[in-house]
């Protein structure tokens, strides 16, 4: 049974973690631990793909509850996602881990982190779920803090710890409300009960806040662009590619599975948060110069796209439109899977650049395509996939989401009818801005001329890292060419949650995907790819037959100004300037001021730009200030004399006795 197999894998991972912490430096070296993790993940992945569904109870944990585990169709999908991503990250780390400054700070936590994520997905009661959730959070927190020398990783660690605790707290409350009718924490008991209106709404809000803050939904995202880049790159790939998916799993599990029938207005906050995250995430990514932070912000965008799909699925589910709900949910799950694939490649590539050059700032890179050709090719595939370009996988899932929006005029509620087109605009905007963002990231870092000396000494990364990047880039292409195979794999989970599925690919020509049986719309990635290749070949042959073959290498055209240095190229900040001017005043409250020296002064003029992160300024800082003010207030209580404290105790006693008397 899959659940037994996965439990054994989790146990093996945890034992590996303990051994890596306590064992000898030689016996449990980096490559061995990572290699072992990769093999265990592969076993769990195969078990998730081929296994059988089932549940079991272990006599551990709370004595009256035990630990419930189960693998159902939804869990199997996410298990496959986690273990594929985890295995890839471990493979990458076999090579990348050699460059760690302090491998002993990373090695024990890496397998524990993957084990925690697996346990979250197979947990079948609230106690086990939250325990596994905390294992996942704390292990990843330790990984974020592994590079303790960097000042920003300490800040990232503190913020992450606070937000992780907060998200666990909200989930705890959500489970508490769900358990209330029976007082049982087993998921099987929660499913049976139906909550009165306001309580189910409260559970939705708590789940959205708890899972959403872990996944990086706006405005609870603030920890994510700090924490994800601070970790070592293979851990960043895991956190961005996989851990956000575990958070999405938690949301789906609570809202679609445990909470019972949906209400239409639940879709409103989910769609709003998703749309906002999609656009704001990618706009922040566009302004970012740190390659890993840029990728972290782009994660927020993709999580937003997934939540748009989930919101639409909720709306359709509440209105008893199972076919449309199946379409929306398939789009969301498919995009979650795709995001794991391409975001892993992107973080692997960013890690390789970091090793090769020591730089994360794209302003100091450039021309990497010449020194790291194979990584550059993999990165190009991933950049095109995440930009939603056909024939790759990112487009296939965005296409499905767009098709979902097109069936939503059938929704009866006016609120949704007005909201959905707006969210559609946001989605289209996010897709277009993502393309701009990744043209900028790839073009500045990999193309052009080197902007600093660190690029000239760079070299191609090791073969394990290349293998991991190559495999995932190839999977991006395959998932784009044959999306129907993946969607078919997801359909069991979709069927379980909304009671319907997309039309099976077997009835359609050449593995096309078709959103609804009654609409004559289809897309076929394989055909589009074939046509693209044929057309390019025709063009190339025609040019080769008709045209000249003479090539002359020459210097750049310099407009008559000789010796234009690499600094004359566009910088990343300059590249984003038009978009910052268009969206900045609204989204970042950005401003530009030119500082001119006084007349006669020979100092250069300078331009100053200021951008604000409004989520920090309008949400986090007021909360921080309030907490500080409260702490300041209670601080006085610390410095009283013993007489005062005794009198406080006396007064409290009297007060309690009075209350007790009056109560009765």
């Amino acid at each position, binding site marked *: 049974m899959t659940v037994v197999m996965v439990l054994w894998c989790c146990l093996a991972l945890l034992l590996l973690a303990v051994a890596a912490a306590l064992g000898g430096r030689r016996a449990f070296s980096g490559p061995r631990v990572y290699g072992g993790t990769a093999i265990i993940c592969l076993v769990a992945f195969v078990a998730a793909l081929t296994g059988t569904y089932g549940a079991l109870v272990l006599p551990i944990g709370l004595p009256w509850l035990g630990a419930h585990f189960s693998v159902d169709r939804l869990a199997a999908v996410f298990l496959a996602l986690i273990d594929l991503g985890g295995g890839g990250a471990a493979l990458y780390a076999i090579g990348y881990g050699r460059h760690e400054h302090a491998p002993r700070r990373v090695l024990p936590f890496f397998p524990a982190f993957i084990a925690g994520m697996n346990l979250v997905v197979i947990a079948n009661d609230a106690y086990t779920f939250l325990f596994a959730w905390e294992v996942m959070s704390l292990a990843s927190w330790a990984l974020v803090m592994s590079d303790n020398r960097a000042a920003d990783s300490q800040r990232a660690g503190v913020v992450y710890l606070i937000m992780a605790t907060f998200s666990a707290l909200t989930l705890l409350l959500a489970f508490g409300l769900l358990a209330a009718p029976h007082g049982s924490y087993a998921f099987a008991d929660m499913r049976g009960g139906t909550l009165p209106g306001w309580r189910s709404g409260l559970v939705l809000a708590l789940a959205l806040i708890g899972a959403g803050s872990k996944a990086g939904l706006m405005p609870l995202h603030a920890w994510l662009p700090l924490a994800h880049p601070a970790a070592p790159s293979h851990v960043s790939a895991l956190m961005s590619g996989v851990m956000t998916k575990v958070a999405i799993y938690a949301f789906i599990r609570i809202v679609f599975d445990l909470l019972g029938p949906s209400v239409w207005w639940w879709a409103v906050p989910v769609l709003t948060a998703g749309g906002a995250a999609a656009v704001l995430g990618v706009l922040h990514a566009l302004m970012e110069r740190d390659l890993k932070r840029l990728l972290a912000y782009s994660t927020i965008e993709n999580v937003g796209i997934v939540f748009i799909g989930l919101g639409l699925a909720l709306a359709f589910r509440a209105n008893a439109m199972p076919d449309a709900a199946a379409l929306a949910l398939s789009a969301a799950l498919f995009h979650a899977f795709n995001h794991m694939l391409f975001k892993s490649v992107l973080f692997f590539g960013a890690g390789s650049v970091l090793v090769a050059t020591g730089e994360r700032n794209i302003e100091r890179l450039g021309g990497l395509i010449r020194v790291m050709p194979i990584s550059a090719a993999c990165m190009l595939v991933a950049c095109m996939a995440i930009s939603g370009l056909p024939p790759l996988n990112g487009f296939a899932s965005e296409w499905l989401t767009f098709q979902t929006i097109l069936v939503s005029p059938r929704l009866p509620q006016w609120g949704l009818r007005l909201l959905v087109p707006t969210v559609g605009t946001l989605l289209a905007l996010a897709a277009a801005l993502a393309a701009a963002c990744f043209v900028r990231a790839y073009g500045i870092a990999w193309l052009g001329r080197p902007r600093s000396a660190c690029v000239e000494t760079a070299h191609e990364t090791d073969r394990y890292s290349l293998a991991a990047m190559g495999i995932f880039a190839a999977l991006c292409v395959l998932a784009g060419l044959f999306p129907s195979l993946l969607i078919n794999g997801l359909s069991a989970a979709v069927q379980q949650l909304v009671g319907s599925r997309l039309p099976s690919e077997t009835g359609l020509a050449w593995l096309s995907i078709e959103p609804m049986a009654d609409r004559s719309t289809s897309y076929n990635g394989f055909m589009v790819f074939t046509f693209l290749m044929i057309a390019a070949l025709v063009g190339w042959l025609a*040019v080769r037959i008709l045209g000249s073959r003479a090539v002359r290498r020459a210097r750049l055209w310099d407009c008559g100004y000789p010796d234009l240095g690499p600094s*004359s190229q566009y910088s990343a900040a300059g590249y984003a300037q038009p978009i910052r001017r268009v969206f900045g005043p609204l989204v970042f409250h950005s401003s530009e001021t030119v500082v001119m020296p006084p007349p006669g002064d020979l100092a250069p003029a300078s331009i100053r730009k200021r951008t604000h992160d409004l989520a920090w300024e309008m949400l986090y800082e007021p909360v921080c200030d309030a907490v500080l003010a409260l702490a300041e207030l209670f601080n006085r209580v610390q410095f009283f004399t013993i007489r005062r404290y005794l009198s406080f105790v006396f007064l409290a006693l009297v007060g309690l006795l009075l209350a007790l008397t009056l109560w009765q």
Partner: protein
Amino acid sequence: MIQALLAQGVQAFLVLLAAPLLIGHVRRVKARLQRRRGPSVLQPYRDLRRLLQKEVVLPETSSWLFRVAPFFIFSATWVAAALVPTFATDLLFSWSGDLIAIIALLGTARFLQALVALDVGTSFGGLGSSREVMIASLAEPALIMLVFTVALIAGTTELSGIAAAVLSPTIGLRVSLALAFIGFVIVAIAENARIPVDNPATHLELTMVHEAMVLEYSGRYLAVIDLASAVKLVMYTSLIACVFCPWGIAPPESTLPRYAIGLAAWAGKMLVAGTALAVFETIIAKMRVFRVPDFLGIALMLGLLGTLLLFVSRSL
């Protein structure tokens, strides 16, 4: 089946061969409006031949992407154009990509174009690329919303289906279609780098967008990119013709004379659209780059308005 395959093949090569002619026609009409005689309408063909036979000057700093990208820019544009019905709707492969896929294919071409502009490492390339992505980041969502408007009326995003739906008597004149038409024209002007968004005839750095991106290209690579831009213009014109005035287009399983009528109708539409474009470009001045977002914002709002109208009422 055979007939549909033939229609598909003929049409794919038709857009390719006719593309320079449309460019030549626009240039000719513009020249006449400026009281010049202007070059022959066949001049773009001669330009392409000349470019093909010249040697390529490759910048020292260029990578393999620089030599590969033109062919993929061309192929993505051509595949997108081949999926748009011109004179007949029965295209064999129209099921492999709908209107959203066609737009995304153009996005692929633009992505590669903006990327290789950064490859050689000049400030011109960066300038063109940075402006191009700014324009695209507004034009693409506008186009998607306009497609939503049209698709909601037709009930499908497949172009043959849309053409058939617009031809059917149930659709008639609609407010949302009129909004979508204006939006489509705005986006087409922006995407094809025409005045007032960009000037295809300029080499002044303040105003260049598309030309700045291809500045380092020469010889056969430039020929391929120029042909791709020409195909893109034909594609947008055919798309607008197919969606908003599909009259005359040959339905599936037509006879040969019916195809001839379709072809003549398409040629007539291209002629009218080319002339209208030339007139429009002559009477209007180029915009500042930072006015372009306002211009495209109109298209985006029109698209959103059209979609909202259709979400509110199916008959608007």
